[in-house]
């Protein structure tokens, strides 16, 4: 029962926040208000799905890190030139039609397929299992991720360096 209420509540916040991100005329509101709302609601959904660890990761990396970076980018690109921070959209009708088509297509596919109705049993040692998986069968992916992070760091430094 609590899970059902939590799901609908979080679904409401998530969809509302997402709509705010794509429709808000003020980009700053989208970045500091609606995007964190949507991301935290997603994290709460992770919690409802018995993954509290991912809830923490989501809060730290998304709601903490990504939002901060986006706010920095907005301040650096909008405020310094004194332009208004308002923004407009284009092709609203075409975009809405395409997005609706994607949603209907995916939903129709999901509804038609038979999915496991009951949740499978969950082990209580999720973090241990996660750690073992990361260092066992997924060790190569983890190492590649480390390489990617170094490359991203160097790339961001290269693009953001001071002019010669």
């Amino acid at each position, binding site marked *: 029962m609590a*899970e*059902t209420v939590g*799901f609908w509540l979080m679904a409401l916040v*998530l*969809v509302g926040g997402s*709509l705010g*991100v*794509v429709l808000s005329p003020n980009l700053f509101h989208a*970045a500091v208000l609606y995007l964190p709302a*949507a*991301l935290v609601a*997603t994290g709460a*959904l*992770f919690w409802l*799905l018995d*993954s509290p*660890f*991912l809830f923490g*990761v*989501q809060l730290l*990396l*998304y709601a903490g*890190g*990504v939002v901060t*970076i986006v706010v920095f*980018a907005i301040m*650096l*690109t909008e405020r310094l030139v004194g332009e208004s921070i308002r*923004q*407009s*959209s*284009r*092709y609203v009708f075409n*975009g809405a039609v*395409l*997005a609706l088509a*994607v949603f209907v297509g*995916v*939903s129709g596919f*999901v*509804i038609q397929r038979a*999915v*496991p*109705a009951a*949740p*499978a049993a969950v*082990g209580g040692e999720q973090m241990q299992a*996660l750690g073992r*998986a*990361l260092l066992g069968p*997924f060790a190569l*992916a*983890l190492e590649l*991720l480390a390489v*990617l*992070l170094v490359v*991203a760091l160097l790339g961001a430094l290269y*693009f*953001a360096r001071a*002019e010669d």
Partner: protein
Amino acid sequence: MPLTAYLILAALVFAIGLFGVLTRRNAVGILLGIELMLNAVNINLVAFARFRADIGGLVFTMLTIAITVAEVAVGLAIVIAIFRVRRTIEADHLDLLRG
């Protein structure tokens, strides 16, 4: 809640993010739409991990979250670099590569 509810919710968020990517003029707004789409994918992965009792979904979610953060950092660095040169980040004005 059944798995279908989570999948449909994720599809809805994905569609909203796609709408944002298609309609936003500001490059930062487009990146926010991409964030929403990747977020929807993460919901799918965690839901499948939960309902199939497979730890792989959680591992993939962690990998996608890390990759997304790296993508945002590089993407916004590119946006700032473009802004330095062109003094605008309106996607409509960035058409140097148009044939």
